[in-house]
């Protein structure tokens, strides 16, 4: 399990880098990040489902300027890791693991967000040291930039490591106390979270354009697509 936690934490670091520091090609979005965690830990289907469930939850929180935001990308990666590692130990508690991971997704995202703030404060200290130097050399700026990337990596790595170490054994202990026959009770939580995400997304676009007919065309199109392909 320790090797799995280490691999997932390394991926968490990369997710954090893509979120705010480098490229931003969106491999850090929950649907991508959780699927990759699933692939790395040997349970792609569960990672894929977790990614889709939490993808839209923080869609309305925009990382604009100096705004504080919950680090949903790292949080979702941590939640998916938690669900996968718990399910591995308690396969009969599949939906319980997902529901618990969804609940823990919120504090984990907040932890990630706070670490991002800390990282930005450290960057500020480095910046102040640079501007008061008598002679600025390019290598000093390069080094500062490299520190920034390293700090971003650490944000993701630490969040994943702490959450996995703290919660996997705790969650396994807690869920093993509940009989597996109650597992189905927790399945509807998936629908609830998915619905909340859909409403957040629709609300985001509804604020920009209040055109009911467009929404209805989309609703019809979605139904046709689903019926045709499944």
């Amino acid at each position, binding site marked *: 399990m320790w090797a799995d936690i280490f691999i997932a934490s390394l991926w968490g670091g990369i997710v954090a880098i893509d979120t705010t520091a480098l490229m931003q090609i969106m491999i850090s979005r929950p649907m991508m990040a959780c699927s990759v965690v699933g692939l790395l830990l040997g349970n792609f289907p569960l990672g894929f489902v977790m990614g889709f469930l939490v993808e839209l939850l923080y869609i309305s929180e925009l990382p604009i300027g100096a705004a504080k935001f919950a680090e949903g990308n790292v949080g979702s990666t941590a939640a998916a890791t938690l669900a996968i590692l718990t399910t591995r130990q308690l396969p009969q508690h599949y939906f319980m693991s997902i529901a618990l991971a969804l609940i823990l997704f919120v504090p984990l995202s907040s932890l990630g967000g706070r670490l991002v703030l800390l990282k930005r404060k450290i960057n500020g200290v480095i910046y102040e040291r640079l501007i008061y130097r008598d002679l600025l050399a390019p290598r000093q700026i390069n080094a500062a930039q490299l520190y920034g990337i390293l700090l971003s990596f650490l944000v993701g790595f630490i969040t994943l490591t702490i959450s996995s170490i703290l919660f996997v054994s705790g969650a396994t202990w807690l869920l093993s106390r509940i009989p597996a026959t109650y597992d189905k009770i927790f399945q509807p939580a998936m629908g609830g979270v998915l*619905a909340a995400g859909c409403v957040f997304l629709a609300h985001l676009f509804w604020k920009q354009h209040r055109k009911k007919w467009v929404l209805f065309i989309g609703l019809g199109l979605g139904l046709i697509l689903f019926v045709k392909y499944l």
Partner: protein
Amino acid sequence: MAVRTRKIDRFNIFIRCFFIQASWSFKALIGMGFCFCVIPLARRLYDSPKDRSEFLRRHLDFFNSHPYFVTYCLGAVTKLEEQAQQQQWPDWRPISIFKERLTGPLGVQGDQLFWNRIKPMTIAIGMVVGLTLGRIALPVFLLIYNIPHFYIRIKGWRLSYRMGFDIVSVLSTRRFQAIGDKISILGLAAAGALISTAAWWSYEQNFAVLASFCLSAALTMALIRLKVAVKFIILAVTCLGILVGLLTL
């Protein structure tokens, strides 16, 4: 001392723009990242460490932009710095003022176009594809998101390097607003498609999941109206789902 950059320098500056947000801080926002991007320019245009230091200090000031739109400023600054060297400008204040003036528009245009419209729209399309066709959604999402992303970066760089100061005219609000409006409408349709696809997916799981989906949608709408924080809404709908499961067991 050279007065013009080479292609390799400009390519180097462009590649560095992918790293611009790494040193984001509350004191300079992406000022340090901007300075990092123009290092190849300092190396090419200035020989003495003192001149390079002065150049870097000028570009270490406060600066903000959307990370993808920053090329609209980087290209123009590269061009202007070359001009300043060629024509021996008495001072560099016009370049600093130009950067200051672009700070607002670049941030607003990029945030509105990408974070508020293109990103949610492509995610919605990706999720619709994911719920209907499965894992193919992942490459589809990456592809449809990154085409406009790289297009804006490359176009911004080329255009601004060619136009210099005149790039301001390209960044008019109306132009990007019109594109943004079309994307919003497409996004609303995609959101509609996602709602019906997600509802159908829930129904396929079992009736309890569908019931939870409908109730949670209503609860989320009510809580959004009451301006409840997102984290509490997430916890509320998860608990509601478990409650529905308890009632339908």
